[in-house]
């Protein structure tokens, strides 16, 4: 078992780290305070190819592997969670879902511009009344000739007001007994008539980002925009979460690292009782825990990435990674604040922002309670992975890098 990362991975990681440190970090506190996304972030991430990092070159991407996606997310979130959220929804929920379930035509029309950053995508799944209980979403899609008419509201959608298109799952069959079998997913261009959207402010964290709602009123969407078959919407959406959840796991790992690095720097500088506080055992315990949990989180997401590279189903492993890393990142950030003492309570330092950001990841992309239930089902063998009609492609450097 080779736990090493390649030179290519290291160079990718360094490049993204430099970008985030140089171009995003200097303005991040202000963006967070103002609850406004820096308008440069999306264009720059697009220009630099970061948005399409793990999409094959022939679909406009950079042809790197799923491990690279993870490493990129770790570096981005170490600077701010909002950068990683972009990857989660644009690359994870939108691009990668299209890579898995999209038709060739949809890959040409949507995936390619998404990978190039020419269009911005997001995932519109959650609703005001349904999050964890996804089978029972109420937004509806009614077949009308060669199109569908969508009605309903989606909420807590990252990049809602910034995106050009959204992956939208709606109920197309209200009669069917098994509710989850009555859902269908569409790619919806967000400038279609009948769509309104707005921002949600006042969030505890991820304030330098963009979270909002999208309302659909008699929005006509052509048949060519349907992703997968009618009734496959639940499977498509769960696949989307396998992708998005992975980025959350990798990102939260980066957050643990950021909390650790900030704590190490502060603990070495700050003196109490005649010595740097890094000499005191109770502080050392916190630092050790952070370090240990970083290493665990890292191994978990890299394992998930490795399975994705191999083309193997990884719902369970991704669930472990997301669950552990997000809980651990909140702990790490909270302890980092404690290590900083009163200064941790002020936005002069980054650690309070880490904690506010960390809290959200425990809730979204499948709450950690849902993750627990998923893990129990696998443990009790109540859940078996059946082959999907469309599987996420394995990574193949030659094929993916061919123009």
């Amino acid at each position: 078992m080779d736990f090493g990362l390649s030179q290519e991975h290291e160079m990718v990681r360094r490049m993204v780290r430099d970008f985030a440190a140089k171009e995003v970090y200097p303005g991040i506190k202000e963006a967070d305070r103002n609850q406004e996304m820096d308008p440069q972030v999306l264009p720059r991430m697009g220009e630099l190819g970061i948005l399409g990092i793990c999409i094959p070159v022939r679909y406009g991407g950079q042809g790197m592997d799923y491990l690279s996606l993870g490493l990129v997310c770790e570096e981005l979130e170490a600077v701010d969670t909002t950068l990683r959220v972009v990857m989660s929804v644009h690359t994870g929920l939108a691009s990668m879902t299209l890579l898995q379930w999209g038709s060739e035509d949809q890959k040409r029309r949507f995936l390619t511009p998404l990978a190039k950053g020419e269009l911005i995508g997001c995932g519109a799944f959650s609703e005001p009344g349904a999050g964890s209980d996804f089978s029972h979403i109420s937004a509806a899609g009614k077949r009308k000739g060669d199109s569908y008419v969508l009605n309903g509201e989606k909420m807590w959608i990252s990049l809602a007001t910034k995106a050009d298109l959204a992956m939208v799952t709606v109920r197309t069959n209200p009669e069917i007994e098994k509710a989850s079998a009555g859902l269908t997913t569409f790619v919806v261009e967000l400038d279609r008539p009948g769509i309104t959207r707005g921002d949600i402010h006042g969030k505890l964290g991820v304030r330098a980002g963009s979270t909002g709602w999208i309302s659909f009123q008699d929005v006509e969407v052509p048949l060519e925009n349907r992703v997968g078959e009618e009734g496959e919407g639940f499977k498509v959406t769960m696949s989307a979460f396998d992708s998005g959840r992975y980025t959350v796991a990798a990102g939260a790992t980066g957050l643990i690292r950021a909390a650790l690095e900030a704590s190490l720097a502060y603990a070495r500088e700050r003196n109490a009782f005649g010595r740097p506080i890094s000499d005191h055992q109770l502080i050392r315990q916190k630092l050790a825990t952070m370090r240990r949990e970083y290493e665990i989180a890292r191994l978990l997401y890299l394992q998930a990435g490795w399975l994705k590279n191999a083309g193997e189903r990884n719902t369970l492993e991704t669930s472990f990674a997301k669950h552990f890393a997000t809980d651990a990142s909140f702990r790490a950030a909270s302890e980092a604040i404690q290590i900083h003492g009163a200064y941790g309570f002020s936005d002069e330092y980054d650690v309070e922002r880490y904690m506010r950001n960390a809290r959200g990841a425990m809730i979204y992309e499948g709450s950690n309670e849902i993750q627990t239930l998923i893990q129990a089902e696998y443990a009790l063998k109540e859940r078996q992975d059946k082959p999907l009609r469309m599987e996420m492609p394995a990574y193949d450097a030659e094929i993916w890098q061919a123009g």
Partner: protein
Amino acid sequence: MTNDILVYIDHFKGDPLPASWEAVGAARKLAADLGGSVVAVVLGASVSDLAAAAIAHGADGARIVEDPLLAEFRPEPYADALKTIAANAELLIFPSSGRTRELAAMVAVDLETGVAPDVIELEVIDGQVIATRPIYAGKLLSKIVARDKRPLILALRSRAFPKLDADASRSGDIVTVEPEINAPKTEVKGYSDAEVGVSLTDAAVIVSGGRGISNNPKLSPPAEITDEKEIEVWKAQQGFKLIEALASVLGGAVGASRAAVDAGYIPYAHQVGQTGKVVSPDLYIACGISGAIQHLAGMRTSKTIVAINKDGDAPIFKLARFGVVGDLHEVVPALTEAFKERLQG
């Protein structure tokens, strides 16, 4: 091989660079230990007055080359001229500048000898010259000696060595040399103004103001300003003018604490600290700054910290090398004057 210690006199548009006299002074000290004469070397179109000045500042004599090809400094023709003069010397010492770095480098190649720039210390032990220079951004120091090749070529860091006062009564021979000089393949087209303002992160000297900058009861604001907050900001701005004046004399940049920026005294671009810029200048003068940990995080690696604060118990004094417990509104302008006298005299 002679035991001449040559000193190159750097000049720009006819004016000698004061650092040249520091190089002469350093050469004098070496000559005292090693023996040998200190010979100034001046190259240019018309340089006999510079040669005379060099002798006044301590050289025993001078060798000059006057040639129209040397009217404008270009390293190639200057190196052509200098290599002939320096070939038999024991030492060739330069003051530091963009010009001398190129020139020293090229003469070293011509004479197949060693060159060490940015020397901060010189000693003579058992007749051997040992030069010390910083490496790894000053994190380490390296001692350098010449093996067999001569001259040993050194460029001295500015203000690291003392200069002797000019003594017009000193005399020495000025010898004109006429080496072969090739016409340069480059041409100076012109000059434009030096940059205005020094970037905080690059500055070797930073003078910073804190919350205390607005606290000056002796100031009366103009009649139009009546709002209390506006008066406070106006007073702070007057205070920052004092800071700027000191920074200017020292060739440095202006910094500020978060408190000063938050209070609206000065734009965020000047903020030094955890939230602002992290700086590491050679000299950091903190005026009216208490030294809260988040500010210290931004400047604690400064080589030398000077603190000026009314409160003798302010935490900043724990990090400062030099401290003044006093009113910055009096001390800072006095310091500006004191430095003007010493640096520009």
